[in-house]
């Protein structure tokens, strides 16, 4: 999925339920620079509404969402 988009950090959050995916991603995004991209893998179906809500509130951007095999992959660009 990351053929065209350069990913700077990958986080494996599989198996973690609420609120962990969002808590960890909010920590992880601070470890990359503004403009860089974080790829997060989660198995929490709630993340489909949680991640966009978190991104809107924290001022970051989800540039891609991909689902398959029970795993949801988010590409998040740090903007703030």
């Amino acid at each position, binding site marked *: 999925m990351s053929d065209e988009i350069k990913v700077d950090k990958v986080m494996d959050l599989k198996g*973690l339920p609420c609120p*962990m995916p*969002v*808590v960890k991603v*909010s920590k992880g995004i601070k470890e990359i620079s503004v403009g860089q991209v974080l790829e997060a893998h989660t198995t929490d179906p709630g993340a489909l509404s949680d991640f966009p809500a*978190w991104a809107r509130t924290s001022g970051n951007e989800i540039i891609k969402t991909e689902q398959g095999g029970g795993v949801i992959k988010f590409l998040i660009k740090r903007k703030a």
Partner: protein
Amino acid sequence: MSTQLAQIEEQIAAMKGQLEALSAKKNEKKLSMVVFSGDLDRVLAAFIIATGAVAMGMDVVMFFTFWGTPVLRDKGKQGRDKDIMGKMFGAMLPKGACAVKLSKMNMAGMGTAMMKSLMKKKNVASLEQMIEMAGELGVQIYVCEMSMDLMGFKREEMITYPSMAFCGVAKFLEEAMTSKIQLFI
């Protein structure tokens, strides 16, 4: 014509001032929570919201009062110089986060034990882990001084938490006034 222009400029300047004052007064991204309950399910929900709020970029302040107070006791610590009532409350109320029970389906502790093992199986963080994480994330905890006194709890029997202080209702209200969200749990 020029006087009209001056008037308009004056009005714009006044509006700018009001706008600045308004944005300065605008509530920060802050969440204030009263944790009144000492039930495992409710306190767990409180910490899930608290840690989630930090992730959303908010400052979080939690006020523990009444039945919520014993949740913050440390099971390995003892309070000194307790009177009879204090000792009685101390013995009857849960000693820390590991001892709190579900609000429903406790079934003499069986339900709580079952819920805890289920949480472990499903990878859901325990209350103790949530409290530790809240501390790492910078969630501020205040404990109601009056509840401490009423139930005979001593400061030395409370958990070691990065930012914990003791206060009264005014401190909560001050924080609540500048919070976008206030919750009572």
